[in-house]
């Protein structure tokens, strides 16, 4: 019957000579304990022993991951590619845990910190500050443009004749004597021309007769369509 060897405190390898550095032996022993620890084969006493000493866990992570890669290869696992570097991964977890711990600072600590630190009223630069400035400038420019247009429109309107109120007032007001004269002067009358019978305005007729040399000729040396009916036609009259 085979004897069962279950003694844990019998490592096969001991320091071979006094020349071998004790630190190398310790390093190998630590590595062996880590190897067993990652295999889940460490007793509580050995675990306490391991924790009692300083260890670089980023190195431990690299060693552990290398050992796991070896196991994956030997088992023929197809997903050999696709792991993150253990050192980077552990650093990422550390960073997030550090953030978590800072976020979990108790209220008393917050009060103490608030008392000890004088907070200056400085507004942090917002991400859209530049855009906001442009929007502010554009708003001011728009307002100025609207004011300028309004000023121009109001300035050209006759005084006392506001838009909307003046027109009805004029329609209802009785005609003045001057207005009556002008109305009779501009009384239309019928003129028989070569182009047919036209209804003419007396004042326009006098004006065209005075400046007959301009009649029918535009600045473009061709008859202007919209003035065709206003051409002076003395012969027929």
């Amino acid at each position, binding site marked *: 019957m085979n004897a069962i060897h279950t003694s844990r*405190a019998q490592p*096969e390898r001991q320091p071979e000579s006094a020349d071998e550095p004790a630190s190398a032996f310790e390093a190998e022993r630590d590595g062996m304990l880590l190897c067993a620890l990652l295999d889940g084969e460490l007793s509580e006493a050995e675990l306490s022993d391991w924790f009692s000493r300083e260890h670089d866990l980023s190195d431990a992570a690299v060693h552990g991951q290398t050992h796991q890669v070896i196991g994956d290869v030997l088992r023929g696992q197809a997903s050999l590619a*696709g792991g993150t570097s253990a050192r980077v991964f552990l650093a990422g977890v550390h960073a997030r845990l550090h953030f978590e711990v800072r976020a979990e600072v108790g209220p008393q600590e917050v009060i103490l910190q608030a008392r000890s630190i004088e907070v200056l009223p400085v507004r942090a630069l917002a991400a859209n500050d530049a855009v906001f400035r442009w929007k502010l400038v554009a708003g001011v420019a728009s307002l100025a443009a609207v004011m300028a247009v309004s000023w121009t429109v109001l300035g050209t309107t006759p005084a006392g004749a506001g838009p909307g109120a003046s027109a009805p007032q004029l329609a209802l007001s009785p005609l003045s004597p001057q207005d009556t004269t002008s109305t009779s002067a501009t009384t239309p009358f019928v003129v028989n021309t070569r182009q047919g019978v036209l209804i003419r305005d007396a004042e326009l007729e006098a004006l065209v007769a005075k400046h007959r040399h301009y009649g029918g000729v535009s600045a473009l040396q061709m008859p202007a369509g919209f003035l065709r009916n206003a051409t002076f036609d003395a012969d027929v009259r």
Partner: protein
Amino acid sequence: MRYISAPMTTPEDHTAPPPPDSDVMLVQRTLGGEKKAFDLLVIRYQRRVERLIGRMVRDVDLVPDIAQETFIRAYRALGQFRGEAQFYTWLYRIAVNTAKKQLLELKRDPLIFQSQMRSNDDDETSSSERELNPGVVDEATPEALLASKEIAQAVHAAMDDLPQELRMAITLREIEGLSYAEIAQTLECPIGTVRSRIFRAREAISNRIRPMLDHQTGKRW
């Protein structure tokens, strides 16, 4: 010589759950304020969690983030772990829930989802081909495949060069999934010897493949 010809268990089954007290001890130490204990849990289960998440989300860029989120959530909920189930079973549930939540958030955020779709469309695999082969994982780039192949060759070459007793010990551990006590019984030697042999075998192989892994620093391997 290859050592994967006749495993007694499947690869997934092999990673035989370690004695539960080991993880429980680390959990208790973490709860007692010893952060290094939680780091050891992270080191121990990082690859398994990443592999699990990688099968769910398929987007390799998301895997490390979700895996880290898994460990952060586990850290927050560590007080609720009572040791009734194995630690990895408990961690497995957290990882699955975290991955599901992440997938839901991605679908809710069409901007991210579309950008990821676009980046996926940039490669040579057409979307129709991807639909026909939903099991195809885009992570297996030619570079990664080549690196994996070279690492595997180096591991097998290093195994061939190992002394018989070291090769036996690591084979029984990694391929057959035996515990140290079972290996000690099989090889008729003390557990301390088994521990030493397994460590020395791993270190010998590590020395061969570490330059390759260092070369991959910053990349996913």
